[in-house]
């Protein structure tokens, strides 16, 4: 069986700096896969390559065997990859519901004539988009905030809204960039439940996370990046005790340097 997402020999450079170097990575369908590593290790860069924000200098990126290289972000989204952002990127002045409806519109076809003439397909899409959006807001637990401006939501709720918006694009693969950042412990555990229920809906999850307790409990597999290279991969428990990982986080002992 092929992998859902596969990166092979991916290298990204910013000028002279190699952000990601010869990275091989694969995510299987139905997994919760975590990407961890110190700051600046290249985790978000990996997200940006997969979603078409950057193009890799070398290597291949495929989703179910179809190459994602050279595709523009909206095309990647339509192929079934959605993401959230480390630094929230909501449409702040639009209501929570509208934010999610923008996501749902990724699957809609209404153009200018359809909208002006109020064609039946347009009306059907509006209705179904609104329903989907309400369902997803309920799923992430902020149904009662649907009419509020996104920027007026609390930090944790904004993170939830980003997840709802991403899910509205009907992804096969969901990329979560530090979903628990800035959350308190009860919010964190609620979010873990949410991530699991998203996986149970058939969406594969690839997440970047700094909170090790979250990573260790929800991940099926973990990969560790350091300076753009993958230094470990495997079950959470194995990765945790891997000497290379400990070195990366603690720094090398002086006698070995």
């Amino acid at each position, binding site marked *: 069986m092929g992998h859902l997402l596969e990166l092979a020999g991916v290298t990204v450079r910013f*000028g002279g*700096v190699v*952000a990601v170097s010869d990275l091989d990575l694969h995510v299987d369908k139905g997994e919760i896969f975590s990407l961890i590593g*110190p*700051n*600046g*290790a*290249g985790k*978000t860069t990996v997200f*940006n390559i997969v*979603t078409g*924000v950057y193009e890799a200098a070398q290597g291949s990126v495929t989703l179910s065997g179809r190459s994602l290289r050279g595709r*523009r*972000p*909206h095309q990647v*989204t*339509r192929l079934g990859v*959605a993401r959230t*952002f*480390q*630094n*929230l*990127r*909501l*449409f*702040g*002045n*639009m209501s929570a519901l*509208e934010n999610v409806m*923008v*996501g749902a*519109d*990724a*699957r*809609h076809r209404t*153009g*200018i004539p*359809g*909208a*002006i003439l109020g064609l039946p397909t*347009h009306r059907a*899409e*509006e209705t179904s988009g609104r329903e989907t959006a309400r369902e997803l807001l309920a799923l992430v637990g902020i149904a009662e905030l649907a009419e509020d*401006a996104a*920027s007026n939501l*609390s930090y944790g709720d*904004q993170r939830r809204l980003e997840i709802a918006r*991403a899910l509205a*694009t009907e992804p096969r693969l969901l990329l979560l960039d530090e979903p628990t*950042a*800035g959350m308190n412990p009860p919010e964190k555990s609620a979010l873990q439940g949410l991530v699991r229920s998203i996986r149970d809906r058939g969406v594969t999850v690839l997440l970047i996370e*700094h909170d*090790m307790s979250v990573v260790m409990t929800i991940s099926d597999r973990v990969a560790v990046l*350091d*300076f753009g290279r993958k230094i470990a991969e495997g079950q959470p428990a194995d990765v945790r005790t891997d000497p290379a*990982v*400990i070195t990366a*986080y*603690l*720094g090398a002992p002086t006698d070995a340097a």
Partner: protein
Amino acid sequence: MRVLKRSAASPPEGPAGPDQAGTDREGRLERARSRVGSVKGKLARRRAAAVAWRARLPDLTGPVARAWHRLPRWSQWLVRLGIIVLAVLAPADWVGQIMAPASDWKTLLFYPIGIFVLLAVGLNVVVGQAGILDLGYVAFFAIGGYTMALLGVNVGLDFWIILPTAVALCAVSGLVLGTPALRLRGDYLAIVTLGFGEIIRISATNASWTGGPRGIAGIPHPPDIGNLNAFTYGVLDPTPYYYLVLALIVVVIFVARRLERSRVGRAWAAIREDEDAAALMGVPTFRFKLWAFAIGGSIGGGAGVMFSAKNIAITPDNFPLLLSILVLSAVVLGGSGNLPGVILGAFLVAWLPERFRGLADYRVLIFGAALVIMMIFRPEGLLPSRRRRSSLRTGTGAGAAPTAVVEQEEKT
């Protein structure tokens, strides 16, 4: 893209075991939050001061909008119909006595008032909805005007054939200009559009087939419809032209509203808010920006045809940069993104200088001062759009401030 980029050279985190990484991060977040707190405090104080000033201008839009949405559908239509009836009754002599004692009110109703409203509704699609700053909108007005003049004089076509032709031509011009220009953003895009406005005017001045600086004369009027005075397009009575432009305004408002409340309008709003995030949510941003540009352009072209058909003669001087600026200030003054606001803004920008014609040259000075005062005390416009209002009342939004600070934290 800047926000998406990480700082490539940032060193790995200081000594912290895998287990401590989380707590260390907590610490950093805590520090970030306290900083956000102090920034927020400052913002809140400044905001409170601003709100205290603004309180003197009653904010009716909120309650009015809520009342409006509570009305049943049929009464909403009744109100709309009432407004149209008022507009139809506007060219009465006694209204003119009050509104413009020093000039011919009926002429003003067509130009500048009617044309400005049409242009502002068109520019609002580009600036208010899609968030594309267009400083050369007059270019489309000019293309429409010259299309009417050239096809009317040289080919002898009828107004009703030229109108859709010019609208289509302006949509195509929008696509042609937009294809290279809309790859740029912000200031750069504004400069390119500014250039486009000037290119059209200067080309019209220098080309021989556009009549050069003397322009084109003998432009035919629209053909009469029946024998009614209101539909007889002569030289003396401006009222029929006013009705024509009014009809076009109604059609254009209908179209703009339909677009605003659809996938298209949401995509535009998303692009205006955060173009990169919109693309990552599946919005084909370039295509939608191009559409906004083309639709805005074709509305401007329609206005140009109207203008030309009434004026008999046009010259390049009818299409100065100042016109772009005035229409843009109408959009911003009225409340960018909110149609009733934009229409009110256009009406005021067109009417106020004429109303105070008695003050001679001082009227422009007063008008300028009024614009400045408006922007200080009510930056969101007279009738702000719901979306904009929320953002200006609460600073840049609860999310934006902490995000910016956390991001800086991340990069140090």
